[in-house]
């Protein structure tokens, strides 16, 4: 058995190989001990359940019926935490309950969570979900099976996928492989790797046969990390503090010197 390297990991989600079987969803619920959903019918095109990620479903296969003319097509997409290289959720959390680890996963320490939901607002991919019915609610999201990675295993979903739609390995290898697949079969893939550059790069690289917007993915995201947007304001906090304090002190002194002069008059 080869010893797994300590380089950052990534996953390829190749939707051209996905048959929508949802072994990944069940394996994820099994590994993370999530309760079953109580559903009545379906919540999407075809057999999709549930409609969205939630506190009990850390990954979701979306069913998308895309008919071009007379030709039907059924394309499957997958939603899960992208484990961004510079996660907005981790930057927004006031108690550092979310952290990016060297191996790749953005892990959640529930002990630190105060349930403020700032990460939910911050995440560009709408990933963290909340258990509003709980008396001690916290956020829930894919863990990238960080505990399995530490033991040298692959994430549960990658382990059970029957068709190899989910490939897992060192990020640099996964990027190379994703590019190779597109180059080798250009008619099969659209020439885009979702997650490669989005918000500064993520650990999940999606490939698709149709534009991502058609299969429920969030598109139009900037290529720069989201935390940059708050960072440029927050990093000047100490400077602004000093500046303002000094300014106000100076103003106060000037203004009241003038009023004292007025009171006492010219000596």
């Amino acid at each position, binding site marked *: 058995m080869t010893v797994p390297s300590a380089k950052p990991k990534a996953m390829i989600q190749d939707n051209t190989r996905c048959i929508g079987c949802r072994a990944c969803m069940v394996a994820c619920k099994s590994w993370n001990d999530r309760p079953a959903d109580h559903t*009545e019918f379906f919540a999407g095109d075809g*057999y999709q359940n549930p409609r969205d990620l939630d506190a009990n479903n850390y990954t979701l296969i979306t069913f998308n*019926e895309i008919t071009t003319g007379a030709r*039907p097509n059924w394309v499957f997409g997958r939603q899960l935490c992208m484990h961004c290289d510079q996660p907005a959720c981790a930057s927004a959390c006031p108690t550092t309950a979310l952290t990016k680890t060297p191996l790749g996963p953005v892990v959640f320490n529930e002990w630190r969570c105060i349930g403020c939901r700032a990460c939910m607002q911050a995440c560009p991919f709408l990933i963290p979900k909340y258990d509003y019915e709980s008396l001690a609610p916290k956020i829930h999201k894919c863990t990238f099976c960080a505990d399995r990675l530490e033991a040298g295993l692959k994430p549960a979903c990658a382990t059970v996928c029957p*068709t190899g739609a989910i490939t897992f390995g060192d990020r640099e290898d996964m990027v190379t492989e994703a590019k190779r697949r597109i180059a080798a079969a250009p008619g099969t893939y659209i020439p885009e790797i979702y997650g490669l550059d989005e918000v500064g790069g993520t650990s999940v690289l999606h490939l698709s046969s149709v534009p991502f917007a058609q299969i429920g993915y969030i598109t139009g995201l900037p290529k720069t990390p989201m935390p940059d947007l708050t960072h440029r304001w927050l990093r000047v906090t100490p400077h602004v503090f000093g500046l303002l304090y000094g300014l106000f002190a100076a103003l106060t002194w000037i203004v009241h010197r003038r009023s004292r002069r007025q009171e006492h008059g010219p000596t």
Partner: protein
Amino acid sequence: MTNHWVDMVNADVVLIMGGNPAEDHPIAMNWLTRTKERGAYILHIDPRFNRTSSIADVFAKLRSGTDIAFVGGMIKYAIDHDRIQQEYVREYTNASWIVGDGYSFADGLFAGFDPAARSYDRARWAYARDAQGHPRRDPTLKHPRCVFQLLKAHFSRYDADTVCGITGTPKEAYLRVCDIYTSTFAPDRAGTWLYAMGTAQHSHGTQNVRSYAILQLLLGNVGVAGGGVNAMRGESNVQGSTDQGLNNDILPGYLRTPVEADLSLASYLERVTPVAANPQSLNWLRNMPKYVVSLLKAWWGEHARPDNDFAFAYLPKLGRGFQGQGYAFLALTHAMLAGEVKGLFCFGQNPAVGGANARLIRAGLDKLDWMVVADLFEHETAGFWKRPGVDPAKIPTEVFVLPAASAVEKEGSIVNSGRLAQWRYRALKPIGDCRPDLDILDGLAQAIKRAYEKDGVFPEPIRHLAWDYGHEPDPQRVARELNGRFLVDVTQSDGTRAAAGKQVPGFAQLRDDGSTMSGNWIYCGGYTEEGNLAARRDATDAPNGIGLHPKWAWAWPMNRRILYNRASVNRKGEPFNPRKWVIRWNAETKAWEGDVPDGAMAPGETNPFIMLASGVGQLYAPEMVDGPFPEHYEPVESPVRNAMSKVQSSPCAQVWQSTEFDRYGTADAFPIVATTYRVSEHWQTGAMSRNMPWLAGLVPSAFVEIGTALAKREGIKNGDRVIVSSARGSIEVYALVTERFQPFFVDGRLIDEIGLPWHWGYAGIVTGDIANDLTASVGDANTQIPESKVFLCRVQKKGSA
């Protein structure tokens, strides 16, 4: 399968005929993904666009029940465009054989049909024989009565326009399929043909398979890497179950069950043992007597002796069955309904939901005196007496439910579609008092034996049964018995000695003199003195690198991975496709390399199809009950007239009409074609999967898939409750409205088709109406398999008139 799952990676074209491996064999999709990566085409032919279609290169829709028209057109296409692998067809099929004057075909019927008996006199289809009694041949294939010319004439009626007018396939897609698939006629290209219940569960199901076999033989695709006629079996170990002879008409190893008229072993063996058609045919099954006797020795041990016909009298014999219709499932259910069955052992099956005409079946269960169910959950059959709408007080059946261990809680082997027997060990102890089937059967057998020690009618077959698998029954002992051992010291065919008690190394060493025993001759060679070969897990591939993995577990027969592989080489032993060779003759070592060859004889010594009396692939098959060539007939319930002939549906199909449950509908009341199928998330009748909360959460309720046009006409929206009815009953389910199910342009008009997954019943944590309440008791002529895959129905929104 003639080939196996991993072999798919060698195909240049994969054609999936009405099957849905993405949903029903998802693990196997791995191989199809890899073959696609290598540039293979995937063609998917199915009534609707499903999860398999989503990864196919070409999707061609076809109306349920019209496979023979579709493939018949492909056969004509191949012949017209001369896409025939000439050497293969000439040498390895019966294309050149000349058929006798008794055979003819006209107006939809072959010669020799008896309308009253609904059967053929197959003697009319015999070959023309020469002086030695061997079939005459014309190697030029020009003789007007040779099989090839008769085949050509028969399928000349299946032009593309006629075919598309029957199947409803858009002509452009149809021709594309024909073109791509028949390109595999070239010796260096192979096409694999995958099918499943969508092929088999029809009144002409066996003829469906025949049509695939004919096309594959014409293209030279049988016996080669990436080829084959490959059934994707419906359950993970059904291959194992048929191997062990669990069907009424076969004994283990596909030996034939004796019939009442077989008064002695000799007369039985004479009847069933095939005779070689000519000297070039090895006719391996001439060895059948050795396997039968070895089987009898396995079952009755020292009580099976030469002087008592090896206890042949102890074997049950088949009579004419219920109402002369045999003993298969449809006959059994009708016999139950008629009150002729006192008790039923129902092991790992749920016929109340899974059997065709399920209302009839449940009514039949009411008539049993007792029933023993062994299963993991109390499913619909186990709880039939408390089903909705019945009063348990009125049902006298005594039901015993024996909790069974699941597949991971017991040791044993599972045989997949590729004949690969993989041994597995117990991962967990069974919970509570759940027991493996072996333990349950062992306990039953011991108790029955004890009872028969005291008295009983004709007790000897039970008393003398050789039954010892250990105090705690050990599946390895069963496996060893299946392989068989020598009962006395013998000298084997290669001259070496084998001591009594040693495992037999292969079925070539089995004998008909009582010196060997073997519980199943095709498993002989799987558990030898080397050990349990099915337990091997060495993934090394063979030198020919075509994914044989010969040391991974064990395949029958004799670990041969690709059957009929002698057809992959010419008469000199040279592979037709040197890049993907299966076997090849090494002239120096005078031995075959690669896969286990179909017989170790030197090249050219014998014809490759050694298991057939003819020795060659059968384009023309006079053994079939309903015709030597496939012919398109409409399903028994059909919305259109048969466009090919005046005979509407299969003239030999078994159509039950004796009970109130056996009603049939016509297109005026039931204008919509219906089919049944499965989804990935549920398994069979849902007895297990509808008790798994995660799976139940994914696909909770029974539903019907309806096309958007039909839905609009009926005012049905996605998620509405609808009533689906056939002549046999009606059910209420959710409507899933989709673009993926489009109507078929057939007989000049649009015919709608809808589909019902059949996983639901009234037991379990999620329940739903039973789809099989709508299917009919119609059986295939050869096998009596029910025609569950096509029937007529109507659909209405709930609450509408």
